[in-house]
């Protein structure tokens, strides 16, 4: 695991020295700014203020905007991780060093996750603004951010896995986008399948939409935590095996 740190540092360097991270962060913040404006505007003109929905819950839950932007941002964040190293051959120099496959995968994943967190940090300002103007449930805000972190962590793990499996960045990007979309659509099955059936239960369990609604309203369900734990660990495990398999290819 001693190789984790240098690889992590290099990945962060690669993210921030190339325009990629900055482009993604700027695009993300523009979209989130518009999103925030719409939410605030909506609540400012609301006549019926007895509704129990808060702007905070509307910002993080019950909106497709959150996922739309992640569908666009996660694939380009993770597509490079392995596919690019494989194409350019640098993976050969990397793996010739005394590095374990697991530490390579974890370091690259951690760097992507850090970038993701950095991307979200400025949005804390919105929460502060909401708190200044009206009341704010601090615990709900914390759980909303926990949800954002978990959803992102799961998505990035899927993306990292796709990058380890794909031969080119582009293929990795497409795979990731479709995987995220497929997961989201299965979750949407919650609303179209009949209640009480197994399929409905499965849909509810994997519904990112449903999870975020819960997190946004301050509800931290242990089943959600287990789901995201799986969504993070399983793809990373597969990625590690895939990278290991190159050696025997």
């Amino acid at each position, binding site marked *: 695991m001693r190789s984790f740190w240098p690889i992590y540092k290099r990945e962060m360097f690669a993210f921030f020295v190339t325009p990629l991270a900055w482009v993604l962060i700027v695009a993300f913040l523009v979209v989130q700014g518009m999103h925030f404006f719409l939410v605030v505007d909506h609540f400012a003109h609301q006549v019926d203020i007895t509704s129990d929905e808060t702007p905070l819950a509307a910002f993080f839950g019950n909106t497709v905007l959150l996922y739309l932007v992640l569908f666009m941002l996660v694939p380009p964040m993770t597509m490079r991780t392995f596919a690019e190293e494989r194409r350019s051959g640098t993976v050969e*120099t990397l793996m*010739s060093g*005394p590095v374990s496959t697991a530490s390579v995968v974890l370091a690259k994943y951690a760097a992507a996750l850090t970038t993701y967190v950095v991307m979200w940090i400025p949005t804390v300002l919105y929460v502060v603004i909401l708190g200044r103007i009206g009341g704010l449930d601090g615990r709900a805000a914390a759980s909303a951010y926990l949800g954002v972190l978990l959803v992102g962590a799961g998505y990035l793990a899927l993306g990292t896995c796709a990058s380890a499996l794909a031969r080119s960045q582009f293929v990795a990007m497409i795979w990731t986008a479709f995987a995220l979309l497929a997961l989201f659509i299965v979750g949407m099955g919650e609303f179209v399948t009949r209640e009480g059936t197994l399929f409905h239960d499965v849909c509810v369990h994997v519904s990112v939409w449903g999870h975020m609604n819960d997190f946004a309203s301050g509800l931290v369900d242990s089943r959600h935590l287990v789901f995201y734990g799986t969504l993070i660990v399983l793809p990373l495990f597969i990625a590690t095996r895939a990278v290991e398999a190159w050696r025997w290819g």
Partner: protein
Amino acid sequence: MANLTKRYGTRVAVDDVSFEVGRGEVVGFLGPNGAGKTTTLRILAGVLGSTSGSATVAGHDLVRASLEARRHIGYMPEAVPLYPEMRVVEYLRFRAELKLVTRSQRARFVDEAMDRAGVLEVANRTIDHLSKGYRQRVGIADAIVAKPPVIILDEPTAGLDPNQIRHARALVRELGREHTVVVSTHILSEVEACATRVLLIHHGRLVAQGATSDIRAMRQAVAVDVTVRGSFAAADQALRCTAGVASVEPLETTEPFARFRATFEGALSTEDRPGATERIVNAMVGAGLGVSEVRAYGGSLEDVFAALTQDPGDLE
């Protein structure tokens, strides 16, 4: 390295290769393109697993003690892949840290590696903007930065200009003083220039190994191409009774010169060949034909391989 085999599906890239490299040796890995050199080196560097067989570096098995074995190796892959967005010094610092060079030693090791590989003057340049020659040297600097006992360089002179090739060969020779070096190449003279021992690989098989001088001996000319001022008929006449010459055939030329190839008798030993060449020249001069050019024919790597693959046991 014992009984190493690497298969890709049904294609056998490396077939039952075994060899040993001693401490402080510079070993040249010689073979035509596609012979299995790179595959063998990649296995040796711990980047690729073998289908069967085993490899040990500095006493550590490359599969069972992979990390420990890889600590003792500095490897430069064939195409010298580098991270284009990094500066040379940043890249080497990263590599040194990755190769577990302690923080206190890191700056010094990186400086020394840059100095030896001759990249000090481009230390602060982005790798993206480097010429092929400098990239190659950065690759070598990377291989030596952690001062590993074993250095593996895959085609270190590929794509360099003659000046850079000379520099690279000198560097390899110098590295051989402190490290065990394995270099691959498809150019015979390259091995002769820097290696003490040669491993010849062909179609994934180790066809011969021996001291560089043994291989040099195999590289004997089979004929000489001679250009004289005069007619071919006169030259042919003069060579009829020259000892050691098996046959004479005319080659294309322009008046007033005649060019021909005088093939040595197969039984002629290596030591006798220069004598035969002298006799050919004497015969020409004796016949009143001015010799304007004498060039050895044959003895290329291909000829050596042709000889070896027909009779692989020849060398030992």
